[in-house]
């Protein structure tokens, strides 16, 4: 054990990047690394979200807590979040979280004056900081871009009014899901599929089609010209073992061999819109580095024992 370095140099290959979506391969590393990245993306990449709501007038049908909860879950653009301070260790405002370094103020004023129901949406939230605004979905999604398509907070009928002041703060997903920038972060092991060509050739076309169709996802296909079974999309394979079972049922075990590559992962990252998906990955790597730095720096200090407990002792080889 002693002295053996497990250092590897993982590689990333980006397959697809959109504002709120990224797909990339992570190779030459193991599950611990991939999972750490996933976990950090979900829980520890900071964003800004509404955390404090002061309601002045609320004559809507929803109660104050209800509205506050809904406001909290609205994603705010948080490119600046990495640079912001947590309100709890903000020096400028004694930690009460009401200064430019750690907070953003929002105002919402809506009153329905017509007989038509008024939708109060995230578009009605007016920010004091133009860098932190509710995420705009209209352009990215493409449909209904003409309409104002914010997130509905509450609907008002004639005479109802909502007036409030909200303060957004920096936070992480571990504390509350509203601070999580990730809608979906998931990875899968890349499958490796070997078709036993000889055995496959012994099948009739009918058997081949039935075997190909036994997979719930479209992994295999039959080449129209050569009538050979080919792997259409290896990543569509969901490790469901259906084809293996089918092969066995057909009396041809070993028709195909499927392994999961232990050291390569295909990541899918979808962001809530708070930060770009690509930025989310980069931020996650940053956060992960910081965490590791924290461990390494306080390796031999006494407080490391307090801070990390057994982990610290363990790392020092205890």
């Amino acid at each position, binding site marked *: 054990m002693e002295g053996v370095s497990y250092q590897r140099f993982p590689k990333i290959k980006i397959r697809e990047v959109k504002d709120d979506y990224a797909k990339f391969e992570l190779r030459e590393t193991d*599950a*611990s690394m991939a999972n750490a990245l996933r976990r950090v993306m979900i*829980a520890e990449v900071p964003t800004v979200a509404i955390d404090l709501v002061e309601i002045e007038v609320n004559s809507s049908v929803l109660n104050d807590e209800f509205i506050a909860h809904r406001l909290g879950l609205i994603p705010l653009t948080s490119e600046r979040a990495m640079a912001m301070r947590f309100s709890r260790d903000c020096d400028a405002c004694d930690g009460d979280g009401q200064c430019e370094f750690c907070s953003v103020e929002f105002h919402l004023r809506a009153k329905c004056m017509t007989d038509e129901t008024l939708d109060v949406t995230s578009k009605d939230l007016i920010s004091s900081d133009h860098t932190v605004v509710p995420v705009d979905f209209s352009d990215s999604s493409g449909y209904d871009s003409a309409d104002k398509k914010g997130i509905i907070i509450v609907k008002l009928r004639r005479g109802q009014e909502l007036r409030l002041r909200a303060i957004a703060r920096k936070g992480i*997903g571990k504390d509350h899901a509203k601070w999580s920038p990730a809608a979906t972060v998931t990875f899968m092991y890349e499958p490796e599929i070997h078709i036993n060509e000889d055995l496959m050739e012994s099948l009739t076309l009918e058997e081949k089609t039935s075997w190909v169709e036994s997979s719930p996802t479209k992994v295999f296909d039959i080449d129209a010209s050569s009538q050979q079974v080919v792997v259409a999309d290896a990543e569509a394979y969901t490790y469901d073992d259906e084809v293996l079972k089918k092969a066995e049922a057909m009396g041809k075990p070993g028709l195909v061999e499927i392994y999961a590559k232990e050291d390569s992962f295909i990541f*899918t990252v*979808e962001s809530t819109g708070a930060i770009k998906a690509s930025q989310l990955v980069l931020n996650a790597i940053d956060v992960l580095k910081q965490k590791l730095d924290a461990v390494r720096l306080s390796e031999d200090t006494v407080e490391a024992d307090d801070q990390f407990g057994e982990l610290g002792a363990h790392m020092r080889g205890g």
Partner: protein
Amino acid sequence: MRFKEESVEEKLDHIKRKQEEMSIHKHFPADPVKQAVDKFPLLPEFLKVRGLVKQHLDSFNYFVKTDIKKIVRANDRIVSSVDPSIYLRFKDVRIGEPSITVDGISEKLNPHTCRLSDMTYAAPILVNIEYITGSHVQKTRVEKNDVVIGRMPIMLRSCCCVLYKKDEAELARLGECPLDPGGYFVVKGTEKVILIQEQLSKNRIIIDTDKKGNINASVTSSTESTKSKTVIVMEKEKIWLQLNQFTSKIPIMIVMKAMGMESDQEVVQMVGRNPRYSALLLPSMEECASHGIYTQQQALEFLERKVKKLPFYNPSLEKEGRGMAILRDTFIANVPVRQNNFRPKCLYVAVMLRRMMDAILNKDAMDDKDYVGNKRLELSGQLISLLFEDLFKTMISEVKKTIDAILAKPSRSSRFDFSQFIVRDSITVGLERTLSTGNWDVKRFRMHRKGMSQVVARLSYIGSLGHMTKISPQFEKSRKVSGPRALQPSQWGMLCPCDTPEGEACGLVKNLALMTHVTTDEEESPLISLCYSLGVEDLELLSGEELHTPNSFLIIFNGLILGKHRRPQRFANALRKLRRAGKIGEFVSVFVNEKQHCVYIASDGGRVCRPVVIADKGKSRIKEHHMKELIDGVRTFDDFLRDGLIEYLDVNEENNALIALYEADAKPETTHIEIEPFTILGVCAGLIPFPHHNQSPRNTYQCAMGKQAMGNIAYNQLCRMDSLLYLLVYPQRPLLTTRTIELVGYDKLGAGQNATVAVMSYSGYDIEDAIVMNKSSLDRGFGRCIVMKKFSAVNQRYENNASDRIVRPLKVGHDAERMQILDDDGLAAPGEIIKPNDIYINKESPIITKGPLISPVGLPDSAYKPSRQTFKGPEGEASVVDRVALCSDKNSNLCIKFLIRHTRRPEVGDKFSSRHGQKGVCGTIIQQEDFPFSERGICPDLIMNPHGFPSRMTVGKMIELLGGKAGVSCGRFHYGSAFGEPSGHADKVETISKTLVKHGFSYSGKDFIYSGITGCPLQAYIFMGPIYYQKLKHMVLDKMHARGSGPRVMLTRQPTEGRARNGGLRVGEMERDCLIAYGASMLIFERLMVSSDPFEVQVCRVCGLLGYYNHKLKIGICSTCKNGDNISTMKLPYACKLLFQELQAMNVVPRLKLTEA
């Protein structure tokens, strides 16, 4: 001649049938199973006309429209006994519009204002009267219309209610929820429902065995004037009559003789000439002869001796003697005696005897008391009618008493207005009190029943619906018998087989099924004359001998023997044809009992019945075009009834029908076809998807739990002021629905959320049905609920005219901090955050509340003491004042209600349940990143342990998961109605699996999952998908309790008991036993004395009695020995010291003997 004709007819019929059968067979292969007509659209149509609580509404409407008039007509005169020419006559009665009269101004009421301001939703009872007025000489008849005699609480949505036939928008304007079914009353602001009462049917012969095993025939008679129970019992081979009015049993033959049946032969003929009957009758005849009774006169004299002596009995009143009177009026009172003609009664007794003997000869002829056909359901209308009758009669006698007193006065004032003396309060108060307490104490009818009305359960929408269909049992719950609790086959389609509570009331409390209707009374006389014109031979014209000729059937109408008919089947068919044609009421039932050779016709109220499709020789009368017309809206459910396509069958008539479940199963003998099989379940059981795949008790558990689930209660839920209200913040409609859900509106007022469930083990905090929850899901609002509690305060006015006052809060000083949420008016402001011990009303009450009147304005501040009310909520939690409502109560005191709201997110220990009787508490809450995930990025909301499945066998839950998963992936709500697979109201697992595969899931619903902690794939495929989860009202926050030191009981100085009193946790007998066995003596000592009630006493070593401690001299003194020489100080439980003193008070001297410790 006639006979021949029939046989020819029959033959022809037979041939025709044969041909038809053949033709069916011929057709069969050619067109395979002709697509059965989908009759489902009938159901929503049925429920549209019927509503969900039609039974209550119909019953109440019947009372208001018919019954109340009958009651008043029967007692329409108040005649002064002093001057019989002075009288008052009630000509007509009706119920007005719901309104209230305040200070002479009549104001219309609507139910919601009554709920909010603690009023009774009632309407005036208006009568038209005619009376004599004037002085001694000059008398004139006066008529007066619309005189109010009292106020009648009105059932919501009945024909008197303002909500009657209102559409959704109008209902909304009245503050009412359109989905609320009505069927209850609003009494003093609380909603009260009168439970359906189950009873044995009245006026019917029931053959049963008593405790000693003797066979008896009993009739519970009930007419407008009398109620009685007649029992004829066979004991030691002799037959006796048991009647309350007689001191002992009477030989039956004496009774017959007393009724004029002097000849034994005639009795034998009436019972039936079969020698087996005569043999059974012989001992009774001998008994009669042994008393030397041969004539009617002798028999009556014998009865006279047996009559119970009544304390206020006045023999002069009756001419013919009490025996005769009892026989006429009480003995089987349902058989009327006209002009002292006892013959119908004799025949009735003969039939009773015959039925009894049949039962003796053949045990199968015994009646089953649990048979639903022998039961009647008593509904609110009937109960209120009983009550009203009593109160009305009481009022009449009161009025009579007062006017007699006035008229008896020699010098009365010249004007005498009868109508002035009608008292209104007794009826109003009587109705209101009875409805609000639920205690029916009607002395006139010897009725003392408790708990008849209950507060409508408003915990969930389904709970309140279920409450309306609940049937409370006739037996007391403590009886340990299995018979009445068992599922009766005759319950099919009428009473829900699933919905019954667990525990002591199991099987006794029942619920109506979805389509069940409870009948109301129907006019009898036209039906009787119809029967005679259909060829019933009148009883009067028959000899005893003719009564039981073979092939002739007795016609029994509502328990009354009308006569006999020689061709019963034809008679029954004729009646049924008339019913289907709408010539007689649709709820009249005709039942040919082949075994008893009787045709029973019933038109009485309280029978349960349900609609079924009529079939002719196995072919449904409803054809494709009928359904099309229905869907197009040109045909209604009533049209189906009127056109004779559908009819109502009650439990008895079902025995004459052969009902096919589906049209495809119909045989030529089939007479009816079910509308939909899932209607055998009730409202609560109808929520369960795939209940026919579950183990039966699981469905029963869900029926109980569905009523505790939080969700939406009504559309007007936020305008209500219930004392306790649980709401879900984001209620959802179940992904896997049933037809019942759509029919009852559960999809609009759901009580649960669709959670993605992974069936796997995780962390060990999921054993014993605990579930592991995803923290992020909770953050996003899963299971979040609102609890609203009502606190009220009254600004009381006292007898000395002083009253409470609410004052401006203090801005500074000791209590200022606790008064921060108060407005300047001294009341908590809506929207303010309220913490435990905060004051929500700054009230002061006068110190002097009795004595002479004082002016309330001039009182100085010093005359008041603060009586502030502080909020006691969960410690450490912040609630919010939701609303403050002011109203005046009936004593016109200012009444202030505060609604305090608390939003809660789920925490460890909160109870959740799926719709399959699988409840569990939240075992732990885990971060999302630690939760397992699939490569699609799906992360479950909660994890359920797979051990919940094998023993519970809730396969329905698994199918729900599959169906839900298929539903979310293809975007269509899937269905899981009970028994719905053949008719397409439930998706088959096979098709669900196909959908799953089409969307890239495994057909089995299992997913390949990665551990969120390590990132490695899990060893097994995980069964994962959405299941509808309910949050139940049991939450730890309301239950958790611990105490260090705290309040003690005054008497024993031991800690108080119970969470509400911040009590201690008791080391009970068994816990103590454990400690003794373990030998932890010091721990016992600590728990039982040191932490409980230690008390230092002075004990005299000489006399062994307790002394006292003199604080001045600082020594203990024994008051018996009058010195302080031999005093020891020791510790004793205070309860022990108390015991000694109590013993001493009883002259028992406990002496303590001390030894050195």
